[in-house]
């Protein structure tokens, strides 16, 4: 039978505040274990959490940027469960009265626009980190680092609107892009500052009622999330085809084996017995606060994309690629401001600059090649100083050394020969040396043009301006 998947995503995002959500400990990543801890975040009896205002500020910005309705009155709750990474035996979260509800993201999948709804956004504290014994000496133990305990999180819960792994990926990309634009989170999936849990069920195509869902955790990249979704779609469809049934459970993605496995240990823990957190007073985010947050929003990806199309006359596809990452979008604008033609700049950024970034894994914050340098390079092509092909070599040298394009061109003696008399002299020599090919060309073998161009390039060590070479050759051969 043919099945359709129904997918919802729960995304946890660490907010990039300096201090934790309920105490003054640093949120810095990578410190000595338990260096950033105090009686509050290790859960000593009798201590009181006090809410970090900046956490609310950033969460509200995320909520309005994703078109959510911010609640005028929200409340903290205790989510009770026992696990060694949770020192208090409960996580301070929000339950019945979350911060915001009812948002949406606009995505484009396979050229078709689609609205994916957000169910709710709430704030909570992160748990600590467990290190398994074999990585630290004693396999009989696990070790607990509470530096992460109390780091602020927002949980963004989608509606079950997605019908393919590609739609899930588009949702994640758009969400990540918006949160990066807002500068409220690093959104680094490998480091865990952005984490996604997938709720997925399948149903026979055409059926209205949802099937039983499984929850999949532990995917540290969009690629793995897509693979996990596709694995679950196949697993659940096969189960149903064989007359079995899907069990509601949590499953773990195993990236080494490309499978999901049941997490039996967590099954019993689902009775969280939420109740209102007595240590924290209610949160009142009034209309004025929401208005202020809306006014403080930067230009978001969708708006920037539209502006790139209308102001720079670049194709929608280019605008989509360039605006996905704010630093890349900024890089493009600075290159154009430095005098580059928008479409040429777009082509180079989408290929060379994005390739360099991918290879180096470096952020554009420390650009290997500044927008001004790229603009200068593109200007040299436009002015005919170097050919497009030479420019690739110059770029490679700039990438390796960080030198200015003009310096690279001078040092390598790459300056293009556009002087017509010099090129004409070279062409005359080549035509004189190859009478057979000249006769052949004149007899109709026009493909020989490539041979002549090649010979001229060889003779000039690739420095001749191809446009000039073509022009003179055509003239000479047709006479």
């Amino acid at each position, binding site marked *: 039978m043919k099945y359709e998947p129904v997918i919802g995503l729960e995304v946890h995002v660490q907010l990039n505040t*300096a201090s934790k959500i309920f105490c003054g400990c640093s949120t810095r990543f990578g410190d*000595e274990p338990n260096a950033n801890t105090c009686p509050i975040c290790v859960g000593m009896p009798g201590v009181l959490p006090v809410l970090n*205002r900046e956490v609310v500020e950033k969460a509200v910005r995320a909520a309005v940027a994703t078109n959510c309705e911010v609640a005028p*009155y929200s409340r903290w709750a205790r989510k009770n469960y026992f*696990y060694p990474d949770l020192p208090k035996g409960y996580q301070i979260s929000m339950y019945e009265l979350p911060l915001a509800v009812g948002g949406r993201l606009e995505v484009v999948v396979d050229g078709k626009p689609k609205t994916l709804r957000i169910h709710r956004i709430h704030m909570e504290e992160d748990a600590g980190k467990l290190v398994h014994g074999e990585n630290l000496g004693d396999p009989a*133990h696990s070790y607990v680092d509470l530096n992460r305990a109390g780091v602020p999180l927002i949980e963004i819960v989608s509606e079950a609107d997605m019908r393919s792994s590609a739609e899930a990926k588009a949702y994640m990309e758009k969400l990540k892009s918006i949160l990066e634009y807002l500068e409220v989170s690093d959104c680094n999936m490998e480091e865990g500052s952005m984490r996604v849990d997938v709720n997925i069920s399948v149903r026979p195509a055409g059926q209205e009622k949802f099937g039983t869902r499984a929850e999949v955790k532990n995917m540290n990249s969009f690629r793995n999330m897509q693979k996990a979704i596709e694995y679950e779609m196949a697993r659940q469809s096969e189960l149903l085809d064989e007359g079995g049934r899907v069990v509601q459970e949590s499953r773990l993605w195993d990236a080494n084996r490309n499978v999901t496995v049941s997490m039996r240990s967590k099954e019993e823990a689902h*009775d969280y017995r939420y109740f*209102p957190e007595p240590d924290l007073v209610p949160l009142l985010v009034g209309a004025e606060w929401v208005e202020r947050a809306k006014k403080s929003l930067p230009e978001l990806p969708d708006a920037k994309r539209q502006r790139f199309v209308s102001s720079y006359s670049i194709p929608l596809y280019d605008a989509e690629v360039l605006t996905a990452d704010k630093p890349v979008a900024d890089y493009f604008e600075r290159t154009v401001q430095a005098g580059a033609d928008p479409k040429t700049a777009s082509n180079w950024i989408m290929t060379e600059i994005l390739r360099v970034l991918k290879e180096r894994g470096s952020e554009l914050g420390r650009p290997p090649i500044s927008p001004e340098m790229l603009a200068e390079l593109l200007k040299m092509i436009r002015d005919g100083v170097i050919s497009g092909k030479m420019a690739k070599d110059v770029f490679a040298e700039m990438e390796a050394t960080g030198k200015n394009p003009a310096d690279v061109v001078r040092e390598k003696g790459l300056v293009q020969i556009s002087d017509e008399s010099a090129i004409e002299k070279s062409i005359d020599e080549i035509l004189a040396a190859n009478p057979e090919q000249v006769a052949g060309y004149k007899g109709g073998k026009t493909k020989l043009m490539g041979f002549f161009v090649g010979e001229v390039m060889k003779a000039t060590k690739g420095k001749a301006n191809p446009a000039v070479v073509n022009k003179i050759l055509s003239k000479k051969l047709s006479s």
Partner: protein
Amino acid sequence: MLTSEEALKVAKLANLRLVGDEVAEMVRKLSGVLDHINQLNKLDTTEVPPTSHVLDMGNVFRPDAVTEHFDHKLSLDNAPARSRGYFSVPRIIE
């Protein structure tokens, strides 16, 4: 009246081990609490706004500033077991 199974389930979720007479005692005490709540449930509260907190206030904040009033090494001092700066616990199997 709570059943002893229900009392044992709640105890398990709360990480408590009840033995012998403790089960019956917990059934009696928890049932008493529930009876009290049921009594409150009989009141008509349609006109009473829900109470989220006993204090009539909201929006208590601190600024986003890192403070170190506390030697973090003390964090580990009460732990029954520790190693290399970590809290040490029995192995957790996933």
